[in-house]
């Protein structure tokens, strides 16, 4: 911001432009410390978080557990809050449904905040079929992963459970 202040103090327009270009070249492509956070679509944490879906697809809970912290909390809106073991149990109880559930990840971004915490957000669609009626449904959802020491410590899943109540027991 000091740079901008110096630039704006210049009365000559050409001098302003010159200083501006010069300062941009100096800071061009360099990263540094600041109080602000950033948002990125190609962050390593974004890439790592997408692998969770592969773990589910292959029932690889060991790999999944490695990505979570020991005290992870997995919150399904206001319906239930589970630790990792409870989550595995919940998944197993509803495995038939989860196996048919398709996920369409529209947007995955990671927010790195100044307090060194990071949050990865997945904007996704849950897509599933009701075989009895031959109907396909989709539900927009947001999965928010909070990272602590490169492990996922909180999972918040914001979504409408109304349609799911017929297929999943949230109690």
């Amino acid at each position: 911001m000091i740079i901008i202040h110096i630039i704006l103090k210049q009365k000559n327009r050409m001098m302003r432009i010159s200083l501006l270009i010069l300062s941009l070249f100096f800071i061009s492509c360099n990263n540094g410390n600041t109080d602000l956070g950033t948002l990125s679509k190609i962050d390593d944490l974004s890439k790592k978080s997408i692998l969770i879906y592969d773990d589910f697809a292959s029932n690889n809970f060991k790999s999944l557990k490695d990505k979570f912290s020991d005290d992870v909390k997995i919150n399904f809106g206001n319906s239930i809050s589970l630790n990792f073991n409870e989550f595995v149990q919940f998944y197993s109880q509803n495995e038939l449904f989860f196996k048919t559930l398709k996920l369409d990840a529209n947007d995955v971004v990671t927010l790195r905040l100044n307090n060194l915490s990071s949050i990865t957000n997945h904007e996704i669609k849950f897509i599933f079929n009701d075989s009895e009626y031959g109907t396909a449904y989709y539900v927009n959802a947001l999965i928010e992963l909070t990272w602590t020491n490169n492990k996922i410590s909180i999972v918040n899943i914001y979504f409408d459970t109304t349609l799911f109540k017929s297929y999943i027991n949230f109690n």
Partner: protein
Amino acid sequence: MYVNLQLILVYYIYEMKFFINFLLIFVLFSCGDKFSGVVIENSKYNNYIELIINSYENQDLSYLEKYLDNDVRSTYSTNVLFGKRSVLNTWADDYYFFKEIVMNEREIYTIFNNDKSFTTILKGKWDAVGKFSGNKVSIPCYYKFIWKNDKIVEFKGYFDNYPYYLETKESYDEN
């Protein structure tokens, strides 16, 4: 903490309306697209959202109406609405089914995106009392507002609608 200083610089210059086009072209083409936005502290959009929600709690949607673009696109769990009127009607429906509506535990921040738009995120707990059932509900929610020219052009709401469904059902049973 790694950040894209250029994007921050562009934001401040954008706010000052200072050689904006030249700078954006220069910056966005010089470093690729590693960062898609920077978080802005004390953004005016945070204040706008506070105004919208504070007035919404008092059954006043005038600020929402003021800041919505006429062609706003709003996405909910299973549907997409187009136009300002449809959003206003949807928000106004809350007052029919619920009272004592309060958005608690608010967390608001705004991101300046590299396409020159702004995104404001609002997280919180939507607390209310059902008018028909008398049930207290508390719903964690996540809202995303995308701004262009100081108007909300896109809005996404992620929350559990099940308590709303139950209240609707209760109202039908009562009537």
